[in-house]
């Protein structure tokens, strides 16, 4: 089937098998930040946004994204960089494999929740698994980044 999907502002018109998942589609388009983790909709590594809503690209049919706007980490580089800097400072990215999906989820959260509490942050990110950090450093990084966004911290 033929689909027209806009990824990070660029229109991709492709002929794809009907059971192609969005994860494979965006990677075939060259957006390699999107990672395959559990491939069962549990780990959050493959998080992308469809029309600004975070979804799991491993379980989202590419066909359903026909005519829609998809954003990967490559499409939000500036924001991702500032959050990534806070993560590096706090030791919140170790092997780094979960970082793209994690960053996409945090950026989505920042758009959705105004000044969230630690409990709200932890709850929002429950769908993003990390096997290195134990999450404490990630929480520190998010707090620092949010402070920075509010103009309260060091850039």
């Amino acid at each position, binding site marked *: *089937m033929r689909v027209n999907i806009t990824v990070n502002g660029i229109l991709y018109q492709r002929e794809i*098998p*009907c*059971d192609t998942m969005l994860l494979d589609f965006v990677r075939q388009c060259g957006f390699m930040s999107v990672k395959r983790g559990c*491939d*069962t*909709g*549990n780990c*959050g590594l493959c*998080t992308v946004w469809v029309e600004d*809503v*975070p*979804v*799991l690209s491993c*379980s*989202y*049919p590419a*066909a*359903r994204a026909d005519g829609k706007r998809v954003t990967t980490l490559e499409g939000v580089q500036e924001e991702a960089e500032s959050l990534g800097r806070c993560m590096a400072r706090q030791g919140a990215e170790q092997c780094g494999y979960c970082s793209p999906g994690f960053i996409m*989820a945090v950026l*989505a*959260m920042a758009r959705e929740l105004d000044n969230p509490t630690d409990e709200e942050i932890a*709850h*929002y*990110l*429950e*769908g*993003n698994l990390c096997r290195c950090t134990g999450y404490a450093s990630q929480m520190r990084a998010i707090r620092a980044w949010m402070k920075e966004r509010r103009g309260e911290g060091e850039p």
Partner: protein
Amino acid sequence: MYRIENYVFPSSLEEACRLLNGDLRGSAVLGGGCWLRLGRRHLRNAVDISRLGLDGIEEKEGWLELGAGVTLRRLETDLAVTGRFGGILGRSVSSIVGVQFRNMVTVGGTVYARLGFSDLITTLLSLDARVVFYRAGEMGLGEYLASNGCPGDILTAVRIPDDGRQAAYESLRRSRTDFPVLAVAVSRLGEDWRVSVGARPFVAARAERAEACLSRGGGADQAGELAAQELRFGSNLRAGEDYRRKLAAVLVRRAAQTLERGGEGCEG
């Protein structure tokens, strides 16, 4: 993972039903698609109904109507939902995997599949919800759960009486975002009580003796014991039958006590 030969966006429910019934064994409706995707079905037709405008949340003449395409995440964020029934709909789904997953999974896909582990079905059953099918029309959720299903038909909406009923939810999970070991929803409208127990691991069912006990003022302790006695429980990799039975008594008691105190967020 499933295989799909043809991916179709029907332009109407009539067309969707026609496609389904033209090849009942080889076709499936895609709701969120997350559960279906984990199976190994070979679908000649995947019928995607996400563009049929079934994603509305409406307040209609004494009913709250959830379109089949409403995502679980919207149950947590839409004020028309969170402001009703003590916010139980949003709370009961909030431990299902993560936000991204709940942005995909739909009310219709969950209810139609009659999944035993469903938190949402457990909750809806305690709220006297009704289900609306395109061809078969409207029926009680309990009636649907007890039936052989509606193959070839499409669930279009779930309707909940907007009667001011308060509800409380309890579940136990081995880890935060896992399937529930057991799920319990209890609701109350004056002295009219409902007790629903799901993930037994069978699909949710009402505990009518426990309801009668609460209605006559028998108390939460006794209602919990009755629910544990009257329902059928089973074993799977998450828990054994005996454990679930004991757990049911505790969770029903806790949920009923919450409502006796006046609902979620109220201190005794």
